């Protein structure tokens, strides 16, 4: 009798159609082929242990990096999927890596859940998966588990991605939104509002052409350098949706302090300023995907700035303001014109003004 030899490694599936159909979400062979061909091919062998329902880790690996586990999740929806400076895949990895890194955590493992609209081109999905894998690898992390769902046409906008990340926080660190103190310096690592402006331009519905590219980037190395140079760092947060203005208000609220920033010291690209002028938007509220707000004690501000400026992602780092002793949890801006104005939380989304 001939026996079929036992093969431990399973054969890889292959997608033979050009676009995603509901069958690719049906749990059968089509779905297995999609996962194998698109995602496992991109994410690599470490992710290819699909016979269990969860990724498994040796806790000692985490313990070697710190004494606390950091755990974060975020969903990414963006139109268009590809834009100058990035794409939804890069965004989904950078966003979660940064959410880990701003707490001082070393990013280690990521999950990736993808909701795909029926009809999406397989090649486009492949590009997104490859972009995720490339970005995760640059960040020193691994995508180790995931999920795919396919929904009927019109039930979602092409591709939605949720990434979850885990990392370990070194024992020496205790950053917190409640730790800002009067006199502390407020720093940012570069030009603000590029991502928000790039996305609005890339949508192409306002007939404005600008050379603005998204600042989408993983900031874990930059943050590592800041923490090494300024060990007293109080708090770091990435200024994504709602922009720097929102982060500053969160700090003012969380620490029960007020913040004064200087318009003249706040780095904003000329093109972004002009773009905002035309549309009546405020760059302080535009989203960023590669910018952080850093609160450090005043005597460590210069060291933190110098560390940022040594990193390619911090060349335009600037000290934009300080924490004041006023306890009303207000963010004020001293305008370059010499006046003062409040920088409040954004209400709803920014809508262009009529004239």
């Amino acid at each position, binding site marked *: 009798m001939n026996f079929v030899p036992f093969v431990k490694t399973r054969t890889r599936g292959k997608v033979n159609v050009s676009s995603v159909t509901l069958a690719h979400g049906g749990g059968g062979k089509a779905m297995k082929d999609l996962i194998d061909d698109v995602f496992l091919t991109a994410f690599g062998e470490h992710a290819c242990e699909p016979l269990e329902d969860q990724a498994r880790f040796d806790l000692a690996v985490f313990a070697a990096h710190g004494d606390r586990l950091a755990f974060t999740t975020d969903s990414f929806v963006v139109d268009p999927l590809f834009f100058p400076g990035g794409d939804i895949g890069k965004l989904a990895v950078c966003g979660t890596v940064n959410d880990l890194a701003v707490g001082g955590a070393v990013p280690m493992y990521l999950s990736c859940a993808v909701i795909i609209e029926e009809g999406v081109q397989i090649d486009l999905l492949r590009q997104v998966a490859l972009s995720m894998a490339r970005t995760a690898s640059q960040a020193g992390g691994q995508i180790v588990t995931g999920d795919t769902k396919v929904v009927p046409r019109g039930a979602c906008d092409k591709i939605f991605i949720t990434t979850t990340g885990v990392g370990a926080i070194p024992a020496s660190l205790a950053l917190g939104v409640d730790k800002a103190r009067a006199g502390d310096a407020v720093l940012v690592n570069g030009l603000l509002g590029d991502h928000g402006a790039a996305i609005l331009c890339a949508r192409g519905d306002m007939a404005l052409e600008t050379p603005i590219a998204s600042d989408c980037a993983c900031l874990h190395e930059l943050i590592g350098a800041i923490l090494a140079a300024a060990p007293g760092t109080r708090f770091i947060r990435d200024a994504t949706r709602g922009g720097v203005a929102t982060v500053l208000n969160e700090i003012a609220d969380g620490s029960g302090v007020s913040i004064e920033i200087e318009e003249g010291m706040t780095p904003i690209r000329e093109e972004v300023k002009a773009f905002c002028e035309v549309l009546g938007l405020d760059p302080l509220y535009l989203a960023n995907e590669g910018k952080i707000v850093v609160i450090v004690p005043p005597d460590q501000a210069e060291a933190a700035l110098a560390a940022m400026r040594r990193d390619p992602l911090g060349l335009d780092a600037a000290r934009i303001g300080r924490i004041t002793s006023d306890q*009303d949890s207000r963010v004020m801006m001293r305008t370059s014109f010499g006046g003062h104005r409040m920088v409040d939380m954004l209400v*709803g989304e920014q809508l*262009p003004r009529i*004239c």
Partner: protein
Amino acid sequence: MKYVDEFRDGEKARVLIGEIESLVSGMKLPEGRPLYLMEVCGGHTHSIFRYGLEGMLPKAIELVHGPGCPVCVLPMGRVDDCVAIAENPKVIFTTFGDAMRVPGSRKSLLQAKADGADVRMVYSPMDALQLARRNPAREVVFFGLGFETTMPSTALTILQAESEGIRNFSVFCNHITIVPTIKAILDSPGLQLDGFLGPGHVSMVIGTAPYEFIANFYRKPMVVAGFEPLDILQSIWMLLKQIAEGRVEVENQYARVVPSEGNNAALRAVAQVYELREFFEWRGLGSIDHSGVRLRDAYVHFDAERKFAIPNVRIADPKSCQCGEVLKGALKPWQCKVFGTSCTPETPLGALMVSSEGACAAYYQYGGQKRQAEVV
């Protein structure tokens, strides 16, 4: 930015503030109150708050934020009409962004969109016309809104649609005119205003001559002002100088943009397409004669008001709102009894809380809490 940063120079501002202070100190002020100067235009209100100009001026000058935000003066009934048109499944309803949040009696356009209406934000009426070209099976309606600033672009879009024979495009016309509005404010009983900063963008179209009655008949000085902070400070200085010298004139600070005779091509398009309505309802100000325009009969096929069945119901403003008093300068936004409590930018009761050009929203965002604290 070239041609912009020059008008945001802090050093020059300090010199101007110094000159304003010395003018004020040598002037005879009205008894028991500061000088009230009204900026008519919402764009000025926005700049005043954005650059913190109020805090830089001497206390003897108080700026009154006038009715020049077209989004803010939109009555609730007209928003209901917009929603009714937008909820027609055949319609793609297009609007400028900040009009989407204005509350109607049932919902705003933003809420109508969330409920399934096809409401889209555009940046110009030409974008709406482009949508009409691309969607021949749908009716594309543009929410025509604004003073003389935006009126010509809507008129030119209608003329363009006419020349192309496009028939699935129409305008829900809510354009309003500035002169009757200023007149209505000047006729308000007990009004205390010492001068006007005239609207720069509107004047770019209509010129400065239509304002002469303000100086000649009502004996109030006006300076047509640009929108950069130095423009506004210089205009305030020019107004004060008129008052100090006992002159009452219409002057043009914004001459680099505003020709005294206006823009003839724009005015021709406006005259060709629109005619005055007998009256038009304003939020907070009531009905003002000849303050709005509608499409002429020759363009009836582009008139959404006549193409669609709309409720056309007059809805009274919420009783607690004091928008009218604020618009006329009788109350500061923070003196309104619902400011910052039941009326906030998140849940606006009154329209002045909706657009960032609205005085209440501007106070709330750029300085309202401080004022509130002062009141408490």
